[in-house]
């Protein structure tokens, strides 16, 4: 009696092949100069690869809703960390100093 029936072996190899292809794709696209799109594309491919690993190698595809909630919670908090940090760093504008008063107040 097995607690979870194992997935067929070919699924693992299919995932591996896909991951290899995606690795080559991401390397290739990174070598092109895509301007602002390079980061979203690279991260997008990484997310797809990560998704394959999580869903199939880590069996999340057939796991309980609780496992999925745990993953969601950790990613949510990580997202909070990254985005809320940006509320500070993107709005600092410290390179622009206030104008210096014309009349010196020095005695």
């Amino acid at each position, binding site marked *: 009696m097995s607690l979870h029936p194992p997935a067929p072996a070919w699924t693992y190899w299919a995932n591996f092949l896909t991951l290899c292809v995606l690795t080559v794709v991401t390397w290739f696209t990174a070598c092109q100069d895509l301007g602002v799109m390079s980061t979203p594309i690279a991260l997008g491919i990484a997310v797809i690869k990560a998704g394959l690993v999580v869903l199939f190698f880590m069996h999340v595809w057939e796991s309980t809703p609780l496992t999925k909630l745990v993953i969601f919670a*950790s990613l949510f*908090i990580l997202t909070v960390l990254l985005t809320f940090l940006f509320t*500070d760093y*993107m*709005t600092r504008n410290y390179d622009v100093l206030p104008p210096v008063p014309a009349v010196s107040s020095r005695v």
Partner: protein
Amino acid sequence: MSTMLDVKTGSGAVGASVGHDSKVNYLNHVNTAASWFLTLDHKRIALLYLVVTSFMFVLGGAYAGVIRAELITPKGDFVSSDFYNKSFTAHGVIMVFFVLIPAIPSVIGNFCLPLMLGAKDVAFPRINLISWYVYMAGASFTLFALISGGVDSGWTFYTPLSTTYLNSNVMATATGLFILGFASILTGLNFIVTIHRMRSPGLTWFRLPLFVWAIYATSVIQLLGTPVIAITLALVGVERALGVGIFDPRLGGDPILYQHLFWFYSHPAVYIMILPALGVTNELISTFSRKPVFGYTMIAGSSIAIAVFSFIVWAHHMFTSGLSPYAAMFFSLLTFSVAIPSGIKVFSWLATLFQGSISFDSPMLFAYSFIGLFTIGGMTGLFLSTLGTDIHMHDTYFVVAHFHYVMVGGTIVGYLGALHFWWPKMFGRMYAEFPAKISAILVFVGFNLTFFPQFLLGYMGMPRRYHEYPAEFQVLNLFSTAGALVLGVGYIMPIFYLTWAAFFGKKASSNPWGATTLDWTHTESPPSPHNFESTPVVTADPYDYRVIQKEGALVAH
């Protein structure tokens, strides 16, 4: 939480009901050193934690004594400024990390959680024991750092002071805290899995005691927040060792990034400290007013809400640090939201007390203190979350008073109340009620005398972490130090009468308070090693007092 079959005298459903010496319980069934230091029994691990956290509390209190003694006079004449800095750092580090964060979860939570769930133990008993040893390892490093010269950065280790300019034991302390973080993580992990997977049949989520909801929310925060402080301390260590410049402006780094990462954990950490105390108060208020807690669902939901909101407000500690003003406004607004669930709890307790059958047993005195002190602490938090007023009050004694109201008036008072409440369950013996009442009153009076003047001092501008101050502040400082003496007496007393009671107190029944949760109704005092003879089946809501009659503190045998 009783099954419908257990209409009884409240003396327990399992065989002969008294904590009798001849009856096998978790304390007396085996008593070698190995049986304690290699125990897998969550109840014994709870007692191991009790001993070490009590020791750390006394040590942290001693450092507080140094602070208050220095502040009797405006001049810095009691200790050197260096030693003063080391004292408030030690006080903060010890109290925050070694007392407040582990106290209720690792002592009361460890003891009571499986009992409240009808489980034989936590999900991972070995990991439970390991967490205690990790705590001891972290404590050893930190104590070593304190003994071998101390650290004077403040418990917040702000950079670049801690990474570049200090000559004190930053590395050893950071290492100790890094190690200690794992104890917190392992405990939280254990509790979450236990609550999800080891509830007894019929114990649905909305039949759980509210203490369990609070522990659950606490554990979630521990799990998600502690790793960030771990990596932050690691970065401080690497920066100090290699001088890489991640937090050093001379090398392109940003010191405020350290503060962001530090407070990303340390703000949720304060909710780790308060949530269990809020949970304890639920149990106390309900038991000692013989009424179900008003608004069960709202209180359960507010615990989860506090856990979630705690992660989105951290930069309110950084309003004056050089944060972007737009980010400051954003965080200020969000911080108001986190007060709402706390307020829901306080109003629910008041509604619980209303038309309840209220008593004034010593645990309840602590609960009353908690409501008052936590409310004051929470409301003064709103002063500080308001951006405009915080600019003036940041780094003053107003902040010090605020957090002591919530952490001491909240967590420590809640912890004391919990200890008194569950002491007869833990040891099968009742403590003496009269000194307990005196202690509760002394703590309340001493606490207010110590910390209320500090609101005034901070409002008038006295900075924190200074060992000298302008002479006009002396009177209030004297009140504060006098209060600290009273508070100290209030703290020392339980060490004596509770310890005495554990060995020599009058025998207690299995449910002297007439509580309704599984830990009271289905276990002995003290519980047997495996908690329950058979797995209890739950069919009723918690806090159903109709079937429990209150029994006196002593049992007629």
